[in-house]
């Protein structure tokens, strides 16, 4: 069993955990504000909200789950199922049109 040095990523660069936390909090506020205050067309609103959600999700995955600091192979493996989800939802949506 190979031993991996867990402390390797201790000194990683990038925003501190606390900064990420602040950004997440602010983004949440922005989301709620956008959803209720802004008088935007529906499609645009949905796109903005989804964009914000994906942004937040990425922050969590990249920094809190350390994906940014993992070997590239792991990174690719994790990305693999995402297209599948899009295919499923996308095609069934076309169907419901």
């Amino acid at each position, binding site marked *: *069993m*190979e*031993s*991996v040095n*867990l*402390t390797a990523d*201790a000194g990683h660069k990038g925003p501190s*955990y*606390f900064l*990420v*936390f602040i950004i*997440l*909090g602010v983004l*949440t*506020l922005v*989301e*709620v504000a956008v*959803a*209720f205050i802004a008088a935007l067309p529906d499609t645009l*609103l*949905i796109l903005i*909200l*989804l964009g*914000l*959600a994906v942004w*937040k*999700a990425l922050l*969590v*995955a990249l*920094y*809190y*789950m350390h994906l940014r600091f*993992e*070997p590239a*192979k*792991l990174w690719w*493996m*994790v990305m*693999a*199922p*995402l297209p*599948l*989800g899009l295919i*499923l*939802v996308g095609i*069934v*949506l076309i169907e*419901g049109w």
Partner: protein
Amino acid sequence: MSNTTAAALERPTTGPGSGFGVYNMKLGMWVFLLSEVMFFTALIGAYIILRFTNPGHFAEPGVVLNVPLTAANTFILICSSVTMVKAFAEIEAGNQRGLRMYLAATALLGILFLGVQAYEYSKLVHEGFVPAAEFYAALGRDGAGAVEGGPLYGATFYTMTGFHGAHVTIGVLCLLFTTVMAFRGRYTAANHGGVEIMGLYWHFVDLVWIILFTIVYLI
């Protein structure tokens, strides 16, 4: 095999034939999380499709669901994520006290989240927001009742948030276990895989909630 030297079971960590350079438990957790992605894709996908084809069953954001309350709850979960990652950072630095404190805080925040969700559920049910038309009569909500939307709204809402809640519950139980282990001094600066994979799971649950919050409450 008990008389084996460790060297005999050593595998190369780099070069041809080596693995991903990630220890088994962590790799296994990631692999497992991939299947979780597909599970939530099925639930969220069903929701999107049903909502898309039956807009009449659903209400505008904020009409039925209590967005401020849930936004606060989202914030609680985000806080629990930062405490979780802090716990990990503390043990990486070898700080047992920090580890214990942050783990316990994470578990508490998780419980708080569940509490708020339980409160939200009970209020919604009282208002007549239920997953099936069968319950309408019992709640005095026949046809055009108190709440907007049709049975699909409740069904998809409770299924998605309920299964997320179930994940949080499991997470809290594991967190409590990890906390106990931390108090028993199981983890060290060099040896804290347990904390790391706990963190992976917990952050994933947070991540799912971020998506759910937007899709279910805000859109």
